[in-house]
């Protein structure tokens, strides 16, 4: 920080270094300016992300909860009571038949999330156990990049895979041809399955991290009591890492809830209150896509409904992320 090393500020007599008192005095120096500039730029970057978040929240709230007078917010038109209890979501109808009950979107979203959880969480956890407890360093070297590739596939490709492959070649043959059920061309099952595949890498790598941080001394104690590798994994490592695993599940599910493109392609049609995985559904995210890509009258209730749905979505995923961050940080404390 001191400018004494800087050529500009050092008295140029060349013979002696400045004495102690002089070298501590603050003087103009380019190094100091540079430090300040770097600090400022970094601060601006941080500020940018904070500002983005704040302005998104601001827009969501002013469009859906309270608006500045000439405008009206969504909840000033549709009551909270209707929004949360009405079972029909029919913004596409003429105004007098429109209903804005978010339940069908919520059930659609949770149908996708539930199916993805059934697939993604156990498989992800088993991969994590494999990587952390069983795999040789060599095997890890192969499996981890493959997981990263899986994580890097664009979601639109997953959606395409679901509608072009999963539904016609797997779901229809099994459920329609064999079991005689009705399968929609777009159905929740196909979307749920691919979202499940999508979250596997996330669950696997986060859970693996927490399992590897379980101290080796616990494993050794387990082996010393006559445990097999499976005993150690299932009765010591997984229970000890449980809160961290739980947090990774929450993060993965919040990703499932927010997943948009694959679901829009593979499952989304009209909103209907149903838990039938073979039917078309509408999720919160795919509804937003649907309205945004269609013709929507600016300032209409339909347009405002976007913000209300987005607000609900934002709050659900934010709460889940906060809980999992909190659980993870507490978990780290335990083993530090």
């Amino acid at each position, binding site marked *: 920080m001191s400018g004494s090393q800087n050529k500009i500020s050092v008295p140029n007599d060349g013979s002696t270094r400045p004495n102690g008192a002089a070298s501590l005095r603050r003087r103009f120096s380019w190094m100091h300016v540079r430090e300040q500039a770097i600090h400022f730029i970094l601060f601006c970057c941080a500020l940018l992300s904070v500002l983005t978040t704040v302005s998104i929240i601001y827009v969501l709230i002013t469009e859906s909860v309270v608006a500045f007078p000439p405008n009206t917010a969504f909840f000033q038109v549709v009551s909270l009571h209707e929004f949360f209890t009405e079972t029909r979501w029919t913004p596409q109808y003429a105004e007098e038949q429109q209903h804005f009950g978010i339940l069908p979107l919520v059930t659609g979203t949770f149908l996708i999330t539930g199916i993805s959880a059934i697939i993604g969480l156990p498989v992800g956890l088993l991969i994590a156990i494999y990587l952390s407890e069983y795999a040789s360093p060599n095997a890890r070297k192969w499996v981890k990049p493959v997981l990263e590739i899986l994580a890097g596939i664009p979601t639109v490709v997953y959606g395409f895979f679901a509608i072009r492959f999963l539904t016609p070649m797997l779901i229809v043959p099994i459920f329609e041809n064999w079991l005689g059920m009705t399968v929609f061309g777009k159905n929740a099952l196909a979307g749920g399955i691919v979202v499940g595949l999508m979250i596997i890498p996330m669950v696997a790598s986060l859970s693996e991290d927490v399992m590897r941080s379980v101290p080796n001394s616990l494993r050794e104690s387990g082996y010393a*009591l006559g445990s097999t590798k499976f*005993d150690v994994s299932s009765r010591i490592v997984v*229970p000890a890492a449980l809160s961290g695993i739980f947090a990774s599940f929450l993060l993965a599910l919040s990703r499932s809830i927010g997943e948009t493109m694959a679901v829009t392609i593979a499952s989304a049609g009209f909103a209907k209150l149903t838990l039938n995985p073979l039917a078309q559904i509408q999720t919160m995210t795919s509804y937003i896509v649907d309205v945004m890509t269609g013709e929507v009258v600016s300032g209409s209730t339909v347009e405002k409904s976007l913000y209300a749905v987005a607000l609900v979505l934002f709050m659900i995923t934010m709460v889940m992320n906060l809980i999992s961050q909190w659980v993870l940080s507490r978990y780290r404390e335990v083993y530090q």
Partner: protein
Amino acid sequence: MALVKRFTQFVDPPNEGNITQVPESVPTLGTPKIETRGMSFFYGTKQALYDINLQIQSRAVTALIGPSGCGKSTYLRSLNRMNDIIEGTRVTGEVLLDGADIYNRDVDVVSLRKRVGMVFQKSTPFPKSIFDNIAFGPRIAGQTNKSELQVIVERSLKQAALWNEVKDRLKESAMALSGGQQQRLCIARALATNPEVLLMDEPASALDPASTARIEDLIFELKQNYTIVIVTHNMQQAARISEMTAFFCVGRLVEIGQTKQLFTNPTQKETEDYITGRFG
């Protein structure tokens, strides 16, 4: 470095197979519970133990002493094959438990470790309740009967002199116990599988004097029924609790003898240097 392998003279080499006829020529020693013959140990290419010939007596305490890094832990951990967990380790020679070589191909490591329990330097309670900690071994061995487990937990905690302190809070987390209590919990946990041998690697080195004294009392009690091998860096402790003491130095067994004799009248110069250096 002049090394005398004092115990090789007791071994009858032509003794084949797994039945050990222990030479009766050793008056003060009973049947060895554990015996290593010409045993060497390698971490990859690094040799940590050289040609160890050592007999460990049943229902007695054998102390392993020596400067740090000389292979005491390595030796101890090879007695229940804990070193198998470490990649690239290798044992040559024989390690006999009741006359059977535990490194034989057909030995089931899991059942070996049930017979030869281990307590580590750092207490390692599982993040579970006190009850679940003690019941861990019996449960993985297939015991599911609740009342049986209760009996085992109570017996083990009593053996480890911990019952009175924890009997009212068996459902509470074991992590909440004090350091000394945690170490006795680990001893109780090891006892719950009904081992024949108990290996202890500096079990009291992280504890305060009062807790150390309790652990020593406990070891004194346990040796009535168990064969105990204990590593300690504390020579007074070895002198207090053990019948036999073995002195290791840089991967070699320098001397083994009755504790009293080894401390008062060591036959090897290295032993004497070590003992007097410490006792000063």
